[in-house]
């Protein structure tokens, strides 16, 4: 007699822990049942944890953040078979995991290049030393792409993390399992608690609360439909929240330091030169 398989309960990744929605609700997709349906309160908790974690994450040496992201890649490689399975098996699934690994390694190596790529020393017309340095925008809500479900999350997530942001991500609504599974990779990959939250749920329910949240600095709308984007932009105006638009098709997944730079703010610092 073969052993009865132990099924895994799908859970949110929130504040470094794996939890059910505080609302106790679940929803079902075409391939999975009992997916946690995150509530407004889950979102609020995630933002609170992200805000608390953000200064510490941003103040780590960029070299260190790069190594953490590389460690995440190592963990993903170790779980390749599980991810391929949850992505539906087959060659396409394998390629998507490979691309996810590529993105993690890419941004692991980008973390300590961002200041040199986007900052500057400025030739001002006076006796001042003047320079511009990038800083993370802060806490970013990420509306991950619906498909590819893993890559649509990993690329913008890694891009935002390498610059020192914390991310509250809405994983794909129709295929949430790869995104939720990524939580296990992040948790074992030395991402500090709170730096990333992964929430599954209904976008129609959650997006209005994302747009009107007063303590989110930016929202990466890469996975938004045009209608969702419009509604998000309208609400975001209340707090001058930055809405990073989806951009041209495919551009969001093309690896470039610009994907990280768009989650940064530029700070210009002046100091007199004298004796």
């Amino acid at each position, binding site marked *: 007699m073969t052993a009865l398989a132990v099924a895994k309960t799908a859970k949110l990744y929130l504040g470094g822990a794996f939890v059910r929605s505080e609302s106790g609700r679940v929803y079902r997709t075409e391939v999975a049942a009992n997916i946690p349906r995150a509530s407004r309160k889950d979102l609020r908790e995630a933002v609170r944890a992200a805000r608390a974690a953000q200064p510490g994450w941003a103040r780590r040496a960029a070299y260190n953040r790069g190594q953490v992201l590389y460690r995440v890649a190592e963990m993903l490689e170790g779980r390749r078979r599980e991810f391929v399975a949850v992505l539906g098996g087959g060659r396409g699934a394998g390629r998507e995991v490979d691309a996810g690994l590529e993105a993690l390694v890419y941004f692991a190596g980008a973390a300590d290049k961002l200041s040199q790529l986007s900052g*500057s020393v400025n030739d001002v017309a006076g006796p001042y030393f*003047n320079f*511009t340095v990038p800083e993370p925008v802060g806490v970013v809500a990420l509306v991950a792409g619906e498909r590819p479900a893993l890559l649509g999350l990993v690329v913008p997530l890694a891009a935002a993390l390498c610059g020192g942001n914390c991310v509250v991500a809405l994983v794909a609504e129709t295929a949430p399992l790869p995104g939720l599974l990524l939580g296990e990779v992040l948790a074992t990959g030395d991402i500090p608690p709170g730096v990333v939250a992964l929430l599954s749920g209904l976008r129609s329910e959650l997006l209005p609360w994302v747009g009107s949240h007063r303590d989110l600095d930016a929202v990466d709308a890469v996975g938004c439909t045009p209608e969702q984007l419009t509604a998000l932009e309208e609400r975001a*105006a209340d707090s001058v929240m930055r809405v990073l638009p989806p*951009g041209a098709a495919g551009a969001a997944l093309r690896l*470039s330091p610009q994907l990280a730079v768009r989650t940064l703010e*530029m700070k*210009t610092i*002046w100091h007199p030169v004298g004796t």
Partner: protein
Amino acid sequence: MATSPPTTSATPDAAPAPRPGGGHGAEDRRPAGGRFTYAPAPEATDHLRLRDRYELFIDGQFRPPAAGEHRLSINPATEEPLAEVAEAGPEDVERAVAAAARAFRSWSRLPGGRRGRYLFRLARLIQERQRELAVVESLDGGKPIRESRDVDIPLVAQHFFYHAGWADKLDHAFPGAPWRPLGVCGQVIPWNFPLMMLAWKIAPALATGNTVVLKPAETTPLTALLFAELCQQAGLPDGVVNVVTGGGPVGAQLVRAPGVAKVAFTGSTAVGKEIQRALAGSGKRLSLELGGKAAHVVFDDAPMDQAVEGVINGIYFNQGHVCCAGSRLLLQESMAEPFLRRLTRRMARLRVGDPLDKNTDVGAINSREQLGRITELVASGVAQGARLYQPPCELPSRGFWFPPSLFTDVAPSHRIAREEIFGPVLAVLTFRTPAEAVERANNTRYGLSAGVWTQSGARILWMSQRMRAGVVWANTYNQFDAAAPFGGFRESGFGREGGVQGLAAYVERG
């Protein structure tokens, strides 16, 4: 020319410290003589050639508005009219956007070097007519001639010269991916630095191959119209720059116009939010440079005299009509009293009056409306229990004036500590530790600028990293440069102006 208001200076001897006690230290000793007297030193205006009436500048020509309406632009120092200025209607805005769209086809295809040549020409023309431009800026807006002459207009010229040089080097500004201009830029600018804001908007837009419809503020349209004349003199192709004048509705129409691909706005956070909301779903690119409530932090090891000058410059420059004004002074508790004594003594020596007098430090408030806003907020400060200090000074009887003001006993919850006043009003708070200074500095929805004064280099960098602001001035304040990116965090807006980073707001990449 209308009669000039007198310039008055306070009697320094009569300036009391805002807090009693503290004894008479060395910093209390007043200079021998006690009082300086100044003869009037008015800037001449006989070289001006202002027209009686200015029309809209559309497609390279000055054209009357479709509805034929005009409004008076007045001198806020005397309330005398300066010129009639056209009031654009929806039809006019449409025509201007259409002209800019037509011009975009050829302008965007010009070799960058050729676009640069036009911008170099504009920079030179501005320098050639800088005296006239400075005088008109002071007449129309009320700012001291010393500032329009030494700060505004030189920066305007520099901004065009700087961006002229970028026009043929843009492939190097955006490595790794192709870039292209966006199209017609609808740009709405405020009244505090009229021509400088025009330069910050138009120069990068044109350098990157975009065309422009600019809406200057209703109280300060004149230098934008003089600039339109310079565009004609420079031989700039028709429609590349268009200027539509009028009130708020004109700006609202412009940013909503379907032919506009990019909106750039500098002004209040309330209007910025309105624009961001209005543009939702439009696919238009947006950059916003909004309000501020900057913290100006002074540590007890700061060079006192320089810090006093910095604080004065931080809040009383341009009557405090500065989005990045250092309007919240955070003093380290151990030195707050002696510092305030010096600061108030210095305030008493500020010369308030005729903007055209070369000795004037603080000019006229830009409009009756703005004076009302300042007055209301200052009254709220008194009502909420803060303690107001104003040096005794006689204000001209006509025009719009407000004395340099300082509040002590301010609680972080007071309106004067939270809301942008946009006037010569400083709110003073104290702190004990660097960590507390950071916490207080960041206790605001804004994040445009911040200042810090200390002798410790390590502390400057530590503070600079932690203060949430797009510009940090360390041991200086209110410095601007075309090469130095400027712009805010949080509710102070997004996008940068100036530097290579500022160019990104005007191109599509990838």
